[in-house]
């Protein structure tokens, strides 16, 4: 997807390469780079994903990186109700409705 000047885009850059990580990080983390993503308005006239571009962020800074998304959505969701939780309300209501002490049920 092509982006034009002023579009809201996301850029990506490597902050620290695998060999430059802090000495205290565990082995699995040391093997991978420290990466960063940030969103802003595209300052180039046009660009396609993969291009090196510059954006102006919400705080007014300019940051350069590889264009990775144009008008990226926030697509986290609530997810499906898992069966392990779906019946909890009913189970607890049954205990509440019961008389006396419910050591067996509860």
């Amino acid at each position, binding site marked *: 997807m092509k982006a034009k000047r002023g579009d809201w885009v996301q850029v990506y850059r490597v*902050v*620290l390469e695998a060999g430059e990580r802090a000495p205290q*990080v565990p082995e699995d983390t040391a093997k991978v780079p420290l990466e*960063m*993503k940030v969103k802003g308005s595209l300052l180039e006239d046009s660009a396609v994903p993969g291009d090196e571009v510059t954006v102006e962020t919400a705080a007014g800074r300019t940051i350069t990186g590889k264009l990775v998304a144009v008008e990226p959505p926030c697509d986290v969701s*609530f997810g499906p109700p898992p069966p392990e939780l779906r019946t909890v309300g009913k189970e607890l209501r049954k205990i*509440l409705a019961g008389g006396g002490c419910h050591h067996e049920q*509860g």
Partner: protein
Amino acid sequence: MNRADDYSSVMARRAEIMRRSVGIDYGSFSTGKLAFDYERMMAETGYPLDEVKRIQRESNVGETPLIELKNLTALVRKISEPGLGARIFVKDEANNPARSFKDRRASLSVHNALMKGYPGVVAATSGNYGAAVASQAARKNLSSIIVQEVFDSRGFEQPEIAEKGRACEAYGSEVLQLSVGPELFYVFLLVLEETGFFNASLYTPFSIAGIETLGTEIVEQTRERTGRDPDAIISTHAGGGITTGTARGVLKAGSPGTRIIGASVNLQGLHMASDRDFNRKSFTTGHTGFGFPFAVWPDRSDVPRNAARVLRYLDRYVTVSQGSVFYITEALAQLEGLERGPAGNTSLTAAFSLARTMGEDQVIVVNETEYTGAGKHPYAQIAFARKMGVEVFRGDPSKEKPGENIVIPVKPRQVAAGEVDLDRLRESYVKNACKSLGDEREVTPADLDFICDDARLDRERALGLLAENGVVLSA
């Protein structure tokens, strides 16, 4: 100007960057090799309680409802011995503008930034505090930048942190999303240096002073509602801010008999800086991965002297399992009509267990709720955990293995708070204090007094622990 921006060069400039970005000369409070005057730091650089109240009222922060959880209390009594089962209340902090108690901290930090003439604020946080800073900054016409740890090397974003980043952007923040690693702090320093913005750290005296109103409000509202002081207040413990600030407020409200209890989600066995472990946990805060290290050495934070010092205030510290918190979060929605959390319900989960051992006439107050959102919900976390290879099933939550499985209790009585030995934490604190001395093997009488206050140790025990670490008191 040619500044070297590699990792070690920037870290070497840390002290100077901190001094400029926080505006506090921490060195001026030093009274020994280890010791500093904590109360003087709070008094001189924080804000007095009345001023905090005024700032927060002006910022629409605080004065949240105290809600009695009558159905959860009734459920506790159903599974307790006769006469036991304390009344459970919760402070509904989700009623703040950015919908968590963190607005109390942010309101003071952002107010201070504005008063001192900083053009903007920066916060290093993957939690609710980011949205709180962004929200307060928006209201006060300041720019804000939030630095988050969000995704692993495969590009998987922790859903809860992704949601918090969205909220920050909704309030007009620049959000720097980083992959896993403690070098987030390096990026944070670079941003502070480049922008000259205020470091809205979670751990400044401003931030902690902002929480004291939570303690005073709880005591006042509990007195009004029940005619007694709270017997216990329980908070979700990570970096130590909410526990420290609440406890200080409780003392200022004149309720010294209230027991201060901390609760963390048990994530023991998972490494907090591990790229692999990052997405094998379903809680991004309020867990032992922060709770233990910050208790035993508060000064690991992003400022030289952490104003959150929990060993001074904790009477008891417990852990609960991830599955138990999801279970109680579901119970809160289904039985009380309150969709909140999940991470903020860590303390509620522990309260549900502890209330069973308290008398029916007693009152336990959970000091926060937080908003629920897409990604920030037990359903989303369970779906994500499954995708990451974590098993989820009903069973005995005491058998839960963090990173391998999430065990949702079968019965409410299985929700059990596990005791953390505070004495062990005090020992670790002294060990860390001795380590911070480097080659120095002597401490001053002022240092000894400081250790006694900071770790709540008596003099003999403190001397004994110092000796175990090869440190003696200078003549």
